[in-house]
């Protein structure tokens, strides 16, 4: 069922990124890695990870402006309303004693609640927070308050922390530290390289994938990757499934007509 949610506050994260807070009972019970379908009345409905999950409290979306619907969301003000369906999909499975979380860009949205779930279990994960440049690093305070110096910053341009992609930073930490599991969300090409490097070291991975979501109920097939539906079998996939879809992962996806096109970021 569709519900209306009122935006209770708006936080600007980066020049082109905002976090919208709202209250919704069902989203407050979601698990990290799940997403909701967010409807802009009179406009589109798009999938968004839940970037805050607070049982009984507020939830949030962290949106990067990349097109019409996300631009409208980025311009929203306190008091505006959106439609919400969900939460949907399979999120992350919390496991391991020394997890490494690798976020690129808006990938932090789904990984921040996972970091909190680990801390609640008494495990402090290492968190690579990567972005193009320093001003794009979202939720830096939230994560540093939670994890202290276990947050490793990385920027493509070297303006802050490690200079290079999150995936390159991850390789360094795979070798220097000893992560027993890796969670990743961000640009697909970044996630593929994290996956391949982890595979060669025998480290299990959970990655959150994106495909074109229409129904979100596992019926239309629009979000297919191999024999799986990102909307319902995912969005989080483990190493076993990632191996099965490795030919498509980082390489091929369906466009909204069902034609296979390349994955370019």
């Amino acid at each position, binding site marked *: 069922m569709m*519900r209306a949610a009122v935006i209770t506050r708006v936080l600007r994260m980066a020049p082109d990124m905002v976090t919208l807070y709202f209250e919704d009972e069902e989203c407050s019970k979601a698990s990290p890695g799940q997403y909701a379908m967010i409807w802009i009345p009179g406009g589109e409905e798009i999938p968004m990870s839940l970037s805050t999950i607070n049982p009984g409290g507020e939830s949030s979306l962290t949106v990067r402006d990349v097109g019409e619907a996300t631009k409208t969301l980025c311009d929203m003000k306190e008091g505006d309303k959106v439609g919400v369906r969900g939460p949907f999909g399979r999120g992350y499975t919390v496991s391991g004693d020394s997890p490494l979380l690798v976020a690129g860009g808006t990938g932090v949205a789904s990984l921040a609640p996972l970091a909190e779930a680990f801390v609640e279990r008494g495990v402090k994960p290492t968190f690579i927070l990567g972005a193009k440049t320093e001003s794009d690093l979202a939720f830096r305070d939230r994560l540093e308050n939670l994890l202290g110096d276990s947050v490793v910053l990385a920027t493509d341009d070297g303006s802050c922390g490690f200079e290079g992609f999150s995936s390159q930073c991850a390789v360094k930490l795979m070798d220097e530290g000893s992560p027993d599991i890796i969670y990743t969300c961000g640009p697909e090409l970044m996630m593929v390289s994290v996956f391949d490097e982890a595979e060669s070291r025998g480290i299990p991975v959970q990655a959150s994938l994106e495909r074109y979501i*229409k129904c979100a*109920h596992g019926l239309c097939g*629009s979000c297919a990757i191999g024999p799986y539906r990102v909307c319902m079998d995912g969005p989080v996939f483990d190493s076993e499934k990632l191996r099965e879809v490795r030919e498509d992962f980082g390489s091929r996806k369906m466009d*909204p007509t069902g034609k296979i096109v390349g994955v370019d970021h």
Partner: protein
Amino acid sequence: MSQLSLSVDIAGLRLRNPTMNAAGVLGISASLLKRVYEGGAGAVVTKSLGPAPRSGHFNPTMVIVEGGVLNAMGLPNPGAEYFVSAIKALRAEGVPVVASFFGASIEDFRDVAELLSEAGADALEVNVSCPNVQEELGMLGADCLNTEKVTAAVKEVSKPPVFVKLSPNVTDIAEIAKAAEMGGADAITAVNTLKGMAIDADFKRPILTNVTGGLSGPALKSVALRCVWDIVQAVDLPVVGCGGVANWRDAVEFMLAGASAVEVGTAIRERGFGVYKEITTGIEGYLEANGFGSIKDIVGLAQEAA
């Protein structure tokens, strides 16, 4: 081991069991269709394919409503020509493929049918019943003359059996079924979704971008069952039942009304890909418990009782 036979023959299409996915449910991806087959379906049905690629409607395209699901996908598909390789790949793996398709004109229907027939599809399902696209694209099947003409044009160029899929959004579905029979249809699929809509009280506007959509799932079942019933009385063709089938009992009810097989769509949401196996196993148990030897023995039994 029992001597039961679960196989069926629908106008020459031989299936290991009487279950298929409903058109448009997962059928846009060959890998998902393969998973449907591995989930136990007797054959798979493609997304309705048209003469050219379509993106379909903008989201929201689906919303859960009382007793079912309302969708207005708007026939997204990569085009029939593009999908030929997927059909061939599935068949090469031993998966029987029913190719569903539509057109904007009688010529389109004929051209697409020819293409899919040559691609080797095991059967064709003519979608003249989509409620979610403009009149000329979707609902040619609301009219007897058009239904007959489209069917005849498709039959002219098709090698495999032709199923004509009908809409419940008509005054008398039996009349339309007769028109399809006149046009040379080999079987009837009944039914497509029932036209409906959803309005959000908070936003005070229709939820679906297309405003109206098609209802599927449990709420459609009794309507679909009545449609099958009426069609079976009107024509001398095998019927494939579709609409709200979620378990073996539903499937058996459709067979008692006269359906030779069933298509299952919306139930995948809750039952998963194993729904086909579940239904088949359930039908087997029913046949055995009631002393029947094959599906044929129960097709139309309830008609005799009425």
